[in-house]
């Protein structure tokens, strides 16, 4: 069964450093997303991406965050200057149809720890 692949599975970074989280969505999917889950809290929407541009973003997705699809397969989330409160599980997801009719497929996540 096709899957969304995320690397690395765990990343530790110093506060103030830039991090890039990587995702390979399912190959024929058109819509891409990042979500995050702070320990003990809900899964929260960050951003959606379609046709090489951001479709929608939440209040969390401020100027410190950016997304990119640098080639035909990867989808990345960059955090420019990490803060302690950015520590969370970050999930990438993709769908063929934007309204999630077929359900999003999520990756296994990257655990980001900011120290």
């Amino acid at each position: 069964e096709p899957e969304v692949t995320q690397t690395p599975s765990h990343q530790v970074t110093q506060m103030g450093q830039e991090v890039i989280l990587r995702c390979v969505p399912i190959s024929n999917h058109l819509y891409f997303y990042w979500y995050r889950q702070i320990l003990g809290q809900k899964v929260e929407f960050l951003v959606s991406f379609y046709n090489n541009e951001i479709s929608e973003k939440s209040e969390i997705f401020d100027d410190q965050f950016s997304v990119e699809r640098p080639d035909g397969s990867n989808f990345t989330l960059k955090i420019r200057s990490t803060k302690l409160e950015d520590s969370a599980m970050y999930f990438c997801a993709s769908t063929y149809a934007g309204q999630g009719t077929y359900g999003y497929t999520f990756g296994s996540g990257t655990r980001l720890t900011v120290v």
Partner: protein
Amino acid sequence: DQQVKQNSPSLSVQEGRISILNCDYTNSMFDYFLWYKKYPAEGPTFLISISSIKDKNEDGRFTVFLNKSAKHLSLHIVPSQPGDSAVYFCAAMGAGSYQLTFGKGTKLSVIP
């Protein structure tokens, strides 16, 4: 701002019995609802969904019921199996939006 609420953090059920997981929402603009299952160290896995124009959707052992007037949905798992033990998330989406709003999850334990 809890637009999607799962008020039971945990639920224990005997194997073979019915599991009922509940979810309430406050935003009347939500028109599509989904249930996800999550195991530790994995991402959420899509289970079943329902559009607001329906009141029931069934897929094998999983049935989702939607009561729009009460802004309430539930997931029924019959019969429950030990492999169903996981955290279940209710999620909702508004028309024209790509954003899923999740509840906090209910941890289901199915006891053999």
